[in-house]
Structures are given as structure tokens and as C-alpha cells.
């Protein structure tokens, strides 16, 4: 019996050494393999409690390995390098466009005020009441600008947290291949939304392009 125990210990040690040799870093997959090695080598000597515990450890290792796979599937470089900067640019463009529109409205409103100053009585009062309401309504721009700034801040926080998760948890995801992205239909490929000003064609570019088909 002691010989049999000794032989089993040696066998287990050899298997663990082989696992370590293949994978020098302590990884969740390694934990699963170690647990499986212990379970298969020592199954006769383990109590039900020991076995349940080891199975839980193996499951934990598998869960972590799956999480790593999911992180790899996220294509984190796309998130930090493309998606979040793109979203931030889009939000900045919204602020710029609404600010320009608000300025145009205010300019027209100031013209109306000038006209109101040349009028008397009820017409002047009504015109001024209308411009007052426009001025009040235009303050939305300040509020939305502040809200968007907060959203941009949140996106940057997410970006930092994702980068931190990858730094601590997903370094070894390079070999894991994410599932291929779902293919877009021809219709979906045309749904790009408004372009950022620096990337967009203006009306004269569109006109030229249209004319080139003639």
C-alpha cells in the first residue's frame, strides 16, 4: 500500500511538472488541468467533500478561462482605440452643431429685438415676449453641453477601466480568437449616420459628385 501511494505521488508530481513545463505562468487553465490531474490520479483517496471542492475549483478555473475568452471577443483595442474615441467625437460634433444653430437663432432674435424697438404698443410687446421665450429656450444649449460633457467623462472612465481589466486580467488573450462579427446586410452597410464635419463632404462636393454621373 505505501508503495502504491508513493508511486501515485510520483505520477502526480510528474504530471504536474509536465503541466508546469508546458505553461510556466499560473493561469486559470492550468488550475483546471491541475485539478483534473489530482482528480484522476487520486480519485480513490479523495473524500466526497474533497472531490466537490476540487470540482468547484476546476469550475472556477473554467469560468475565468471563459471570461478571458469573452474579453478577447470584446476586441478591447477596438473599444479603446476606435469605439470610444468615435463616440466622443460624435458627441463633440453634436455640441458644435447645436452651438452653431443656437448662435444663428440668437442672431435672428437680436434682429427681431431691434425691429421691436422701432415699434410701439401691442405689436412691440408681443414681439419682445416672443424673443424672450426664444432666449430662454436657447439656454438648452448650455444644459445639453454640460450633460454631454458628463457623458464624455463617463466614456473616458469606461475606457480607463477596460484598459485596467485588460492590463490585469486579459494579457494572455492574444491566442484566443474572438467569434467573427456578424455580417452586415447591404442596407446596414449604408447606415453610417451623419459624418463628422472634417470627414464629410459639403454640398458643393455632393453637387460635383452628382454632376459627374451626368
Amino acid at each position, binding site marked *: 500500500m505505501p508503495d502504491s501511494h508513493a508511486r501515485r505521488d510520483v505520477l502526480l508530481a510528474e504530471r504536474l511538472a509536465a503541466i508546469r513545463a508546458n505553461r510556466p505562468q499560473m493561469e486559470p487553465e492550468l488550475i483546471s488541468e491541475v485539478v483534473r490531474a489530482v482528480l484522476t490520479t487520486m480519485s480513490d483517496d479523495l473524500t466526497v467533500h474533497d472531490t466537490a471542492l476540487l470540482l468547484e475549483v476546476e469550475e472556477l478555473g473554467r469560468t475565468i478561462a471563459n471570461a478571458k475568452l469573452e474579453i478577447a471577443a470584446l476586441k478591447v483595442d477596438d473599444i479603446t482605440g476606435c469605439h470610444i474615441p468615435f463616440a466622443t467625437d460624435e458627441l463633440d460634433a453634436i455640441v458644435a452643431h447645436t*452651438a452653431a444653430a*443656437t*448662435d444663428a437663432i*440668437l442672431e435672428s*432674435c*437680436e434682429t427681431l*429685438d431691434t425691429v421691436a424697438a422701432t415699434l410701439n404698443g401691442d405689436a412691440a410687446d408681443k414681439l*419682445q415676449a416672443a*424673443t*424672450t421665450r426664444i*432666449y*430662454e429656450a*436657447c*439656454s*438648452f*444649449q*448650455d*444644459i445639453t*453641453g*454640460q450633460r454631454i460633457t458628463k457623458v464624455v467623462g463617463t466614456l473616458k472612465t469606461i475606457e480607463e477601466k477596460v484598459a485596467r481589466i485588460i492590463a490585469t486580467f486579459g494579457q494572455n488573450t492574444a491566442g484566443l480568437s474572438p467569434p467573427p462579427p456578424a455580417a452586415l446586410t447591404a442596407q446596414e452597410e449604408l447606415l453610417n449616420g451623419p459624418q463628422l464635419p472634417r470627414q464629410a463632404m459639403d454640398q458643393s462636393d455632393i453637387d460635383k459628385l452628382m454632376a459627374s454621373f451626368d
Partner: protein
Amino acid sequence: MPIDKSMNVLIVDDYKTMLRIIRNLLKQIEFNNVEEASDGAEALSKLRAGNFGLVISDWNMAPMTGLQLLQEVRADGRLKQLPFIMITAESKTENVVAAKAAGVSNYIVKPFNAETLKDKIEKVLGHA
């Protein structure tokens, strides 16, 4: 006591559109001598150099916030009695409490309307 609408009013906001809106609303209630500053430091400089009867300031500005501007104004021997209205999107209780503790004369939450602005100005200048 009638309000002297010829007084100089300083409006402070880092957002030019908001300065334009407040200037126009003030004009509609006949305050025509309005100067602008785009941050707390510029405002403080103008206040120390000029002769103003009222400050209307945003809170959320950098590097000097509206609250810091208010604190500087209240700490300045020549400016400490100057009526100071805060117009801000900061509407949490702790903000209002902090502004009050710093000596704000009145507090308007964005978005606001012309009637609110007129009412607060009358209240503040009526008690000045």
C-alpha cells in the same frame, strides 16, 4: 427704492452662448451696461478695476469656479458688499448651501426664464 438700471453689470460664464442669452435678457429688462467675463479670474480682474453694481455668475468654470469667485469677492474689502447672483445647473442642496455660506445674494438654477432673472435681480438690488 427704484432700481438704478444704469449700473454696470458683470456677467460671468465660460460659455459664450450663455453670456449672449443673459446679456439679451438683461437688455430686455433695461439693463444696458453689461460687461462679460469668461472665467472667474477675468471677472475678478474686471471687478477690481471697474465699478459694478451687480455680478451674475455661472458656477461651473475653470480654473476659477463661480464659488471661488464669490469667495474672492467677499474677501475683498472693496467688493464684499457687491450683490452677487449665481446662475448654475448645479442644483444639489450642498451647492446651494455652500453658495449661501460663501455669501451669495441669490441663486438661479438653469434652465431659467426671464421672469426668474428679473425677480431675483429686483430682490437682490432691492435689498442692496
